[in-house]
Structure formats: C-alpha cells, structure tokens
C-alpha cells in the first residue's frame, strides 16, 4: 500500500526519450531526470562528499588562522599549486562546490514546485474513491451495525469531520483525507533552503569580516586601514563603514592555577570605551559569548596576549620608540614573538626581534611555563642597519626584513633591564608588560534573513515529519436487518497509519447499536 502511495508521489521514473521526438523531447527528459528523486539522492551524496576535502586542507577566508595556507605552501611546495588549481584551498567558494549545490537547488525547486501545484488541486478536489477491495488496505475492520446505511454514513461523516478530516459522503461510502499540512510543511522546508542561500549570499556579498589587535590603552577607529586584516567582497561599501572608535581600557584574564587543567583559561574580559558618530561615549565589557554591537557592526573578543612595553633610544640619546608592542602567542602558555622597529633612529636604524615568556622557566629554556604573568622575561636580539621600510611594499608589523641588517647584541631581560648596543648605537629598556586583545569585527546584513529561513526550515521539517497524511474510507452495505460496515485507511507517508482514528470510528459506530437498544423504534 505504502509502495503504491510512494509510486504515485515518486517522480523518479524518468522515461528515456522516445527516438521520434527531437529537441523538446530531450529537453524534457533532461528536466525530468534532473528533478527526479533519484537525482536528488545522488546530488545530496555528492554534496556531502564535496564538503569533505575542505575540512582537512587549510582554507582561505574561513580558517581561524590566516597563515595556514601560506604555511601549507611552504611545507608542500610541489603539491600546493596543484591543489590550488583545483580550488582545494577555497572549497566552499569553488565553482565545483557551487555547481553541486546550485544543481541541487534547481532540482529541488523543479521537484517541489509541481508538488505545490498538485497539492493545490488536491485540496480543491474531493478525496479519492474507496478502492474496490477495502480489505487490502491498512487497519481494515468489519463490523455490523443495526441501523440503516444512511445514518451509518452520516454518523461516520460527522465523526471524521470532527477529527479534522475533509470528508465527502458518496452513495454507499464515506471518503476522507487528512494531513495536507504535511505537504505544506515539506514545501516550506524545501523553499526555506532557497531563502537560506539568499541570506548567506547577501551576508557574503554585502558584509565584511576583519581583525584588529589592540594593546591596553590603544584606540581603534572603524576605517579599513585600521584593520590588521579585512576581508570584503566586491559589493562591500568600504567607505560607508559605521563610524565609531573603541578604546581598550583594560583586559582581565585568569587561568586555572592548579589541577589537571592548570593553565586553561578561566576568565577573559575586555573593558572598552566607545565613541559613536553622534558624540555619545559609553563604556562596555566584551567577553567571549558577549560581543559589543554598535549599530549592527559587532566586536567579538577572540583572543588575547601580551604586549611588552619598551623604550628605545638611539645613538644620540633621543627616545625613538616607547610603548607597548603586540607579541603574538605561539603556544598555549603564551610564549609569544614580536618585533620592535625604530626607523627614525640615528645614526643607524634599529630593529629588535623578541621572544616573550610570561612565566619564564628557572633555567635558560625558552618556553613559558604558564600563561599567567608570573615571571616575565623578554629575550631580545638587536639589529642595526637598514630596515628597508621606505622601499615600496608595506611590511608586516610582526616581522623584520633582515637582509639589510646586522645582528649586534642579544639579551634575556627582566622588567627594568636595559640592553646597551655596541658602538653607541643606542639602547632598549624593558619597562613592563601590558596586555592586548584580539577583536574580530563583523558586519553581516544577511543574517536576519538566514535566521528567518532557519526558523521556517525547522517548522517545515517538523511538520512534514510529524504529520501523517492519510485517507480513511467507510463503506456500508445492507445485509438483511443490519448494515455491514467496512473501515480502512491508507497512509500516504512512509510511516504507519495511526490506529487511533480507525479505532475511535469503530467504537463510535458500534455505539449506534447501543443507542438503538436503549430507544427501540
């Protein structure tokens, strides 16, 4: 029975085109094949498989670590360009991935919209006639009632309408159907997938994502040039970023001090003051799971670290750099590396490469023992020469170009220590340690659309899986003084017919007998 029902709904019978029909015939065949259920299954399987490589290879624009792809290039110099040609570092933005999901969505629309039309017709047409042999249908039962056919059928109509069935009473039988909402749910579910795509696409096309690191006391202004990294699409309006500025007032980080998980972060909050275009100034606290929302642009705290404060003097005794320098953590205990550059130093430019350890080991080791600030140490290597900063290409603030420089000194420094460079080239003092916070800043104008799509998707899916579309027939035939009543149903879904309706129908029809006994006519 179920199979019959399925066949009726299944459009996977894609007939091969007849040889006599050219042009349109092939087109129609292609369309029928594309929109068949079998194609849907194959495309779904393909989509799942196509998503796999991106989870193993580093991805551009999606990974947390922007250096992952360059690093992979360095480690696999021959293989990487080939993978790149196949878009394997951009799997989810690749043409072949797009091809699969677009085909799937086309197939789905082509499959589901005709069902929409069919549903409309079915809702307006009468429920189907009872099959000749009711005994072959689900939950078939037969009872005899001392009454006449008319009253039995009237009563059955009443009961079924009360239970929410669409009912028609025909000569000798009652036809009823229920659960059309299931199809509505199914449609809603599938169409909301399209809406979801619209939401995701508008976020990608109109929004942006960026990162900025701020040391204690630093101020960030929302313009593209303040970002350490900014990813935008062709349609992002870079000159129309929401105007605001944010100052990091303080950062509070705590770590588990003991136990098996010593060193795991326990608390991690940033206190900021932000200034909006209309001149209002407010303070706020940003924590993981608690971003700051400024007119739709959101700031998330994604990481933190240390920024040693140093003062650099040049050969003339002039201060050429002073303040915190952001050092990027390279492992969980916050051993961090960073550089200090003093391009204005006289007579020669100065550069320093450093390793910072918040909790230095008691020996000479160069790995921090704990993420908290217990025994900070700054290991510096000093260079003199040409930093190469005035030649063209912008440089990273986290690296020094060493080709024009000469190493002149090295020192492990504690807070307060100074390093005097040879030949009176200058000095550097380690004044103290500040913290910095890493912010992810995002603007996604499509996310409300996606949220609405997700809600529809959930409602549609639940409806389509929970509600069982089903038919019930009641046939009454005279047999002498009594009426023989047959009841049966059919489930139009893969799940069984819920027996409750048939049982109740039987019970209520049998009760006609009792009332008859009580009031003999």
């Amino acid at each position, binding site marked *: 029975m179920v199979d019959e029902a*399925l066949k009726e709904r299944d459009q996977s019978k894609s007939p091969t085109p007849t040889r006599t029909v050219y042009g349109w015939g092939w087109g129609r065949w292609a369309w029928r094949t594309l929109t068949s259920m079998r194609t849907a299954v194959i495309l779904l399987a393909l989509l799942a498989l196509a998503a796999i490589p991106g989870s193993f290879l580093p991805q551009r624009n*999606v990974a947390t670590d922007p250096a992952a792809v360059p690093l992979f290039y360095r480690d696999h110099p021959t293989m990487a360009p080939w993978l790149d040609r196949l878009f394997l570092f951009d799997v989810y933005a690749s043409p072949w991935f797009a091809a699969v999901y677009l085909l799937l969505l086309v197939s789905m629309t082509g499959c589901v919209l005709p069902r929409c039309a069919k549903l409309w017709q079915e809702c307006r047409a009468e429920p189907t006639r009872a099959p000749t042999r009711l005994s072959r249908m689900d939950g078939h039962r037969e009872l005899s009632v001392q009454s006449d056919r008319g009253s039995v059928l009237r009563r059955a109509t009443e009961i079924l309408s009360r239970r929410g069935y669409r009912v028609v009473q025909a000569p000798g039988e009652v036809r009823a159907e229920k659960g059309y909402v299931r199809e509505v749910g199914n449609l809603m579910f599938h169409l909301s997938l399209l809406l979801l795509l619209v939401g995701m696409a508008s976020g990608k096309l109109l929004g942006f994502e960026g990162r900025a690191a701020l040391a204690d006391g630093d101020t960030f202004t929302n313009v593209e040039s303040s970002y350490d990294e900014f990813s935008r699409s062709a349609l992002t309006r870079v000159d129309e970023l929401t105007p605001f500025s944010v100052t990091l007032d303080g950062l509070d980080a705590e770590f588990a001090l003991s136990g098996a998980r010593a060193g795991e*972060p326990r608390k991690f909050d940033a206190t900021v003051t932000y200034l909006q275009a209309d001149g209002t100034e407010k303070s706020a606290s940003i924590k993981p799971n608690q971003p700051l929302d400024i007119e739709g642009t959101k700031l998330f705290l994604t990481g933190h670290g240390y920024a040693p404060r140093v003062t650099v003097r040049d050969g003339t005794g002039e201060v050429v750099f002073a303040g915190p320098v952001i050092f990027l953590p390279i492992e969980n205990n916050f051993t961090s590396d960073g550089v200090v550059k003093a391009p204005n130093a006289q007579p020669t430019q100065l550069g320093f490469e450093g390793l910072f350890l918040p909790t230095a080991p008691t020996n000479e080791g160069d790995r921090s023992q704990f993420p908290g600030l217990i025994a900070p140490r700054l290991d510096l290597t000093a260079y003199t020469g040409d930093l190469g900063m005035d030649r063209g290409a912008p440089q990273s603030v986290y690296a020094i170009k060493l080709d024009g420089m000469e190493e002149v000194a090295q020192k492990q420094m504690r807070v307060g220590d100074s390093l005097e460079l040879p030949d009176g080239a200058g000095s550097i003092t380690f004044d103290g340690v500040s913290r910095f916070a890493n912010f*992810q800043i995002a603007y996604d104008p499509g996310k409300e659309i996606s949220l609405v799509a997700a809600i529809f998707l959930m409602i549609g899916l639940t409806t389509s899986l929970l509600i069982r579309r089903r038919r019930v027939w009641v046939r009454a035939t005279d047999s002498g003084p009594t009426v023989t009543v047959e009841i049966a149903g059919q489930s139009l879904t893969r799940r069984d017919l819920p027996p409750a309706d048939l049982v109740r129908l039987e019970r209520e029809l049998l009760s006609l007998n009792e009332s008859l006994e009580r009031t003999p006519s």
Partner: protein
Amino acid sequence: MTWARLSDDLVVATMMILALAFCLYAVSMAQRTTRQRGVAKEPVTTPAAASSAAGDALEHPPEVGAPWSERTARIASVMVVMGLVLNAAAVLARGIAAERAPWGNMYEFAIVGSTAILGAYVAGLSRYPLHRLGIWVIGLVLVTLGSAVTVLYTPVDALIPVLDSYWLAIHVGAAIVSGGAFTVAAVTSAVQLFRPGRHPERDEMLERVSYGLIVFAFPVWTFAVIAGAVWAEAAWGRYWGWDPKETWAFITWVFYAAYLHAQSTAGWKGKRAAWFSIAGYIAFLFNFIGVNMWVGGLHSYAGV
C-alpha cells in the same frame, strides 16, 4: 561523599549492570542458535559463538509462550533499563557537581552519549523486538563507557570561557539526543546490511526501526546545527564559517537527508538507503571523535 565522586561510582555501577546484561544477551543468542539448529546442547556462551549467532537475531518474530532465549533476553532488557537509570543518575550527579550542563568535555560527552544511546534503545524496545540486537547496542555502550573511564576521564572542572554559555546546554544537548538515536539506527542498518541471507520480514522490521529513529533524530540534529550557528554568531561573529566541526555537522546532515530521500525513492529503499544511514553515522562519529582529536579548528575544546 561528593557529588563528583558519586557520579564516578554510578558510572562504574552502570558498567557492571550493563556487562551483566551483555552476557545475558549473549546467552540468549546462543540459546536461540542451538534451538534453531535443533541441537539440544548446553548454552554456548563464548564470544565467538555469540557473534556467529548475532545475525540470527530478528529472523524469527517473537513466539507465544516465549522460548528460553526470549526470556533471557527480556531479563537482560530489564537490566538495561536499570543501567539507563543509573547512567542518567551519574550524568545528573556530574551536573550538580559541576554546576552546569554536564557536557563540556570528551569524558562528559561519552557518559551523556551512552545515556542517549540507552534511551533510544529502550524507547525502541517498547515497540519492536529490538532486544535481539541488544548485544550490539550494549556492546557499543560498554566500549563508550569503558573508554570514558580509562582514557577520557577528566575530573569535574569549570568550563573554558568560550563554552560558558547556555547555548552549550541547548546545542550540545540536542546533538547528543540525536546521536543516541543515530547510533541505534546505525546498528539496525548495519545488521540489515551485513547479515547475509534473505530475510524479508527481518529486514522490513529493521528498516522500520532505522527509519523511525532517523525521522526522530533528523529534526533534532537540524535543530542542534541551527542552535550551533546561532551560538557561533554570538561567540565568533559569524554563524557559519566552514570550521571542521561545522563542516562535519553539515556532512552528517546531508547524508541523513539523502537517507530520507532514498527511502522515498523507488528502487533505493532497503539496503541502498541503509548505506546512507551508515555514512551519516560515520560522519557523525568522526565529528565527535576524529575532529576533536586530529583536525582541530575553532572548536578547540577537545580537552581530552
């Protein structure tokens, strides 16, 4: 005794009673085999005999005046229900000890996960003669709990800040509930696929169980993924970023969607569809185990 300690003891108690149930299921299977072969030998309880007998499960619908094998299996099932209660109590005690939803690390996933599997199994048991597959399901739960107490064990501790959110309870909770049902469905699909011979009646039953479980679990999983996206939006500023964990959640979802479609496709019902159930489950497991251990990504709470 502290709540944490109580929870640990309850896990051990759960394992003991489940081990007993496992043995009884094995005995029941052996009884069934000997009876079928018409050999009135004493019950064979070696593991080898048990597994060779495994596939005979479900070939015969329960009979009136239940034979010994049925009775033994029923006793085992009662023990499983007790195991479920103990396991749930262990989870509860752990939650009280930690003062949060007790699913914040791999150890906790394992003990809540086994509760979910047992729950799905017991729920299925009330409608289908699933106890004939008990040995597989309970074996799986025992492996899960066994690895929980040996390699995954972590004392009660606070959460790392990124996980400290009520979304953890919602998102991971939903994922675990659907995981329980997916697991049992994977067992029924696997028996359907890997047990040789034609047993249309048995296959039909297995398929109905798998289908019923997946129809239940699929929307719950969908909800878990959506809740995860909402949480990701709140925590990282984007609701979907193709992080490995998100990617494998998506792969799982698509495989199960393919399963549901295959069930409605002429010629794909039955064994072909069952393959999708297995594929979906492998993706699901990989997400919980493989991604945590080997792939990494933003969801770096692996904290094994």
